[in-house]
């Protein structure tokens, strides 16, 4: 496909997707049963009326500043850059947010919408547990009932996060259907929502799902890129040459990409999980190796078999272990504005250890994929080039996984 034809100086208004029906080109949309349409319409109308309202914006910004600790700093990873041997690597420190990842930005926004709609109960799906923990956190803060759906396999793998959610007062429901992982938790949360829509708000954790979720989650997460846009000139006098982020569902990537879409000189690079390698078939790289289809309310790239059944995914990082991807990424890929690459488990683990040892930062395994690609890419570039990596979360949750991979038992 051809490159997006953007003039050198583009105003933000040149890119105004999704359209009014939630489509990003052929992607996105509202592929749900009729029973959910009224709830989605109500959500879309409420969000449209709230999003630019000054009082709503002010409350959101207040929460981000005082509860989350924003703005998150950007850090020049000098030693990592030296080891990589080329471009300078900068890290956007979303790992320093309250609850340890970018997830909280979106959850605060959606919980505020829920409160505005008078819904006393919030539900969420979670894979690794980060979105579940963020949702449980906000529910505790706002005094809302919280139910988190989590595949029973993930409940076993992520015992610490399950306990964190319970400490915060949430009910964690193990899902026994299908592959017993994130996608099944999402199915189950949707079912809960259809059944309890009168008093329940469904807080989706990524830029997927039916319209308006991909747009709304992107908007709430775009605080990440908005900050970078003034932080980078402050630090280096210009914008970076490339912005790099890991992509599972793709919320941290959309959050940092979106404000940079009108800057044609800034390359946008999404890093998917290649798991055991794309050729092994055991990976989660929907954009690099999938085909367009319909799942979870939107049209996007999916990992599916020849009969259109969704297949099981693999990644060392549970947060990237999803067979779909946000529809806006599908569009950015097709129109050429963003590039998508993949990093396998071994490369991500190596980057994880390097970041720990060289910078004193323990990154999430998800974010380690982005660091790994940045180091690879930096090697072939000049010392003046600048790569900005979204360090979307911290790796405390991954201690068990990494220890196990290193043959260490706690």
């Amino acid at each position, binding site marked *: 496909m051809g490159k997006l034809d953007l003039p050198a100086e583009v105003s933000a208004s040149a890119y105004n997707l999704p359209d009014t*029906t939630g489509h990003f080109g052929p992607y996105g*949309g*509202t*592929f*749900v*049963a*009729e*029973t959910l*349409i*009224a*709830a989605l319409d109500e959500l879309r109308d409420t969000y449209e009326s709230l999003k630019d309202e000054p009082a709503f914006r002010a409350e959101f910004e207040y929460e981000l500043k005082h509860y989350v600790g924003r703005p998150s700093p950007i850090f020049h990873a000098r030693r990592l850059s030296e080891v990589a041997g080329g471009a300078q690597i900068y890290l956007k420190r979303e790992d320093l947010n309250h609850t340890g990842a970018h997830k909280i930005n979106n959850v605060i926004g959606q919980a505020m919408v829920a409160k505005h709609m008078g819904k006393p109960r919030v539900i969420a799906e979670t894979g690794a547990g980060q979105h579940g923990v963020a949702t449980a956190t906000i529910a505790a803060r706002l005094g809302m009932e919280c139910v988190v759906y989590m595949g029973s396999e993930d409940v076993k793998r992520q015992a610490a996060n399950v306990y964190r959610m319970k400490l915060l007062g949430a009910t964690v429901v193990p899902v026994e*259907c*299908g592959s017993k992982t994130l*996608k*099944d938790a999402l*199915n189950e949360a*949707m*079912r809960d929502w*259809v*059944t309890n*829509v009168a008093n329940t708000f469904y807080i989706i954790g990524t830029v997927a799902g039916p319209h308006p979720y991909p747009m709304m989650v992107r908007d709430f997460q775009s605080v990440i890129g908005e900050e970078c846009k003034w932080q980078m000139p402050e630090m280096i006098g210009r914008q970076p040459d490339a912005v790099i982020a890991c992509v599972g569902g793709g919320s941290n990537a959309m959050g940092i990409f979106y404000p940079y879409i009108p800057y044609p000189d800034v390359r946008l690079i999404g890093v998917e999980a290649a798991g055991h390698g794309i050729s092994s078939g055991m990976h989660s790289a929907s954009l690099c190796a999938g*085909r*367009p*289809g*319909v*799942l*979870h*309310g939107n049209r996007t790239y*999916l990992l*599916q078999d*020849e*009969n*259109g*059944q*969704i*297949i099981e995914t693999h990644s060392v990082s549970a947060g990237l272990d999803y067979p779909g991807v946000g529809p806006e990424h599908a569009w950015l890929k097709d129109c050429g504005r963003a590039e998508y690459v993949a990093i396998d488990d071994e490369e991500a683990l190596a980057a994880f250890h390097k970041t720990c040892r060289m910078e004193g930062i323990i990154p999430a395994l998800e974010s380690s994929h982005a660091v790994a690609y940045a180091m690879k890419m930096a090697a072939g570039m000049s010392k003046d080039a600048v790569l900005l990596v979204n360090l979307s979360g911290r790796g405390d949750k991954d201690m068990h996984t990494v220890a196990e991979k290193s043959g260490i038992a706690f």
Partner: protein
Amino acid sequence: MSRITQTLSALDAAGRKALIPFVTAGDPDLSVTVPLMHTLVEAGADIIELGVPFSDPMADGPTIQRASERALLKKVSLRQVIAAVAEFRTRNTTTPVVLMGYANPIEAMGVDAFADAASAAGADGVLVVDYPPEESREFAKVVRAAGLDVIFLLAPTSTDVRIRAVGEIGSGYIYYVSLKGVTGAGHIDIDAVSKRIPLIRDMVGLPVGVGFGVRDGASAKALASVADAVVIGSRIIEEIENSPADEILPRVKTLLSGIRAAMDSVEVAA
């Protein structure tokens, strides 16, 4: 006139209500599916909704999801489901068959290829759960051009604008579902349904079937008193699930015959 419209018009003329059972193709095994369809007809089915298994049946409850999982363990594909319809047609040329499922297996096959194959096999209608009218205008055009009816869901929360949109692109009948959740869940508020159905029928100009929550003769009879057709799914799947392989057909026959008898005891208002 399509086989679905013929069937529903004839029933209406005779003062009877349509009984529409749902089963998932390939549950528990593809070899059961065609004999099961014939059994459903013998037990009084007027139209059969044949579920196409999908890995992520978001709008279905646990019962129908389990049926999908059993079929997928046997790797049952959309093409095989269509082949089962063709086999059914060798012995039955009168009972309409509606393929019901999700968008992705159809898109993976290709909408044109699907419409041609389903039509050639003798299927009569298609209901794609996650294709609401705003996302399926093109699909509806292709499928109707192949001679198939496109059946849509409507819910208690559907607005008049949406109901009219369904009237423009839908055909065959309307499947009116209870809002309260997924397939197999809860019970239906008969009073509310009885008020809503005549309005929908007027706006859409199609017969209205009701489903989601029909468990037995009594609930079927209550719905038959207000709707043109009664859809029953999860209860049949439960019977299949709980029967030894050699008792599936007789047990389903007993269950559905009982429901048919209860429905036929309804007095139809003029």
